[in-house]
Every structure is written in C-alpha cells, then in structure tokens.
C-alpha cells in the first residue's frame, strides 16, 4: 500500500502496524511523536495501530532550539 510519511509517498507492505513501521525505520518509539491523519497516537497504541492505504503520517522528534 501507499502511505505518506513526513511529506514523502512511500510503498509499504499491507497490514503493517505503527510499531512495525517504526521498527522497520529503526526508530525507538520513545524517541518520537506520531501524528496519524492529523490525530496524535498515544505511544501505548503503537502496537495495535494498523496502517492503511493513503494514511498520512507525521513522525517528529525534539531537536536543538532556542
């Protein structure tokens, strides 16, 4: 299926959970915050959150700033 992640279209396997996707991207779930179709996903829901075709993901993290 096709999902949009941080503005880029991406092809991923069907039936992927958010946890799966982050693992596949080598991102620790604790180190990021995820917005799925404009809704913030609580970290405890990552394992049960299924990704669907056309989903729009924003994956953000803290960086240096003043």
């Amino acid at each position: 299926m096709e999902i949009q992640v941080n503005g880029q279209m991406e092809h991923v396997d069907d039936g992927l959970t958010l946890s799966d996707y982050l693992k596949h991207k080598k991102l620790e779930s604790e180190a990021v915050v995820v917005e799925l179709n404009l809704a913030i996903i609580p970290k405890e829901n990552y394992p049960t959150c299924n990704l669907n075709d056309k989903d729009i993901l924003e994956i953000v993290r803290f960086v240096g700033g003043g």
Partner: protein
Amino acid sequence: MRLCGLWEEVELPMMNQEHDDIFEIGGKKLTSRLFTGTGKYSSDALIPDVLVKSGAQVITVALRRVDFDADTDNVMKHIPKHVILLPNTSGARTADEAVRIARLARAAGCGNWIKIEVISDSTYLLPDGYETAKATEILAKEGFVVFPYINPDLMVARSLVNAGASAVMPLGSPIGSNRGLRTREMIRILIDEISLPIIVDAGIGRPSQACEAMEMGAAACLVNTAISSAGDPVTMAMAFGEAVKAGRRAYLAGPGVVNEKASASSPLTGFLK
C-alpha cells in the same frame, strides 16, 4: 519517560545552594533565573556542562520532522533528567500551527510547558503578537504552562495576562543578534505594568546585559545564542549564571541613587585641615 532528559550523572549545579529567593512558576520552584536553550551548538555534548556550570534548570528545544536520510544525534541524550524541558513552537507562522506543535510536544510526555513562538518575518524573526495571544488562550485552557515570546508591547502583554499565560517573554533585540537590551524602554514598562513574571528572551549577547535586565526587575532571562556562539560556551554559560544571580541580587538589595554631580567616598575634609 525516556524521550525526556536522558543524561544520568549530574552533580547538583554549584550555584543553586541558596533557597532564599525561589522563582515559583508553572508549579515548579526554581533556584536559578537563567533559562537556556539547545540551539546552534558546535556539539550537543557541551550541553550537560553548560547546564551544570550555568545552573540553568529550564532548557528549550524545538520539534521537527524526523529526517530519515540524516542520522542526527538525539539532543535529549544530553539533557539531565532533573532539568525542566521548555519546547518551543518555532516554525509556526499562525496560532493554529503553534497549537498543533504544542500538542505534539506535550504528547512526548516531558511535561506541559510550552514557549509560544509565532513568526512569519524571516529577516528579523519578529513575533506576531496577535496570533501568539490566540494560541496562548487555547493552550492555557488545555492546561499548558504557556510562555509566549513577544515584541515588548503593553497591550499584547495585557491580552496575554487575560489569555492565561504563566509569564511574558519580551525580546531584547532580534533572535540570535546578540544586540542586547535595545527594547529596554518597553521592557521597563512591562515590568512596571504587568503582574506576570517578565522573562527577557532573545537578543541578550553578553552577561552584563542579562545582569541589567535582572536589575530592572525581570524575573528571569532566556539565553541561547550568546552561549552557544561564544568562543568557550561552557565558560560563557557560567558567566551568564553568575551575571543573572548578580542582577537579581542587585534588584533585591536596592541600588543607591544616581547623582548628576560627584559625592565624595572619602571624608571631604582636606587631609591636614
């Protein structure tokens, strides 16, 4: 929660022994009135020392999209657990964008403090007071501890009081300019007229300027660029920690009067008469 300050071994900052002058804000009791940031360091590994030497207990961070191509270092690794995180909404050009960033920042689970920065001007990075006030009102209602960053304007500051801000953060001069307290006159008026703590943010370039802001009655100063852009950031951080304490102390001690003419400090009787 591991996303927050990760850095373990941290000695208690040398300069925070005194508990006679507590700055209570957002439900916290601070012994240091210097806030600092994590921007523009040659190496984020300097941050722990900067915090220890400066005594700062509050530190700002920004929120950005993960960049899958660049394997960037995680700034959080360098922030001691006991330090209070103050995420900013940099990148927001409207109240709505600031609100969205604030909610994401809170979802990180590192507390509910937020520095609102709404900027659409790219030359001087001057904030939009009206959009900032709108975002402040929404987020304060949602339980955030809101620190709005503004151009020093009395009417905007009043609207922030009504909007539920926890402090008002006027700029001294443009962000990162190191130009100092160029807005001195209006900061003086905010301190005089506004009931909330006034925290001078942006533009402070040297410790003497932070010291002066505190002498004027500012509740605190936020200093990032002047530290991270210094030749020796850790030493400069310590200097700012001392200067902010000095200025606060001078404010509490009450400076002597300023005279147009001289007033002898030795007896005015001539030596042999």
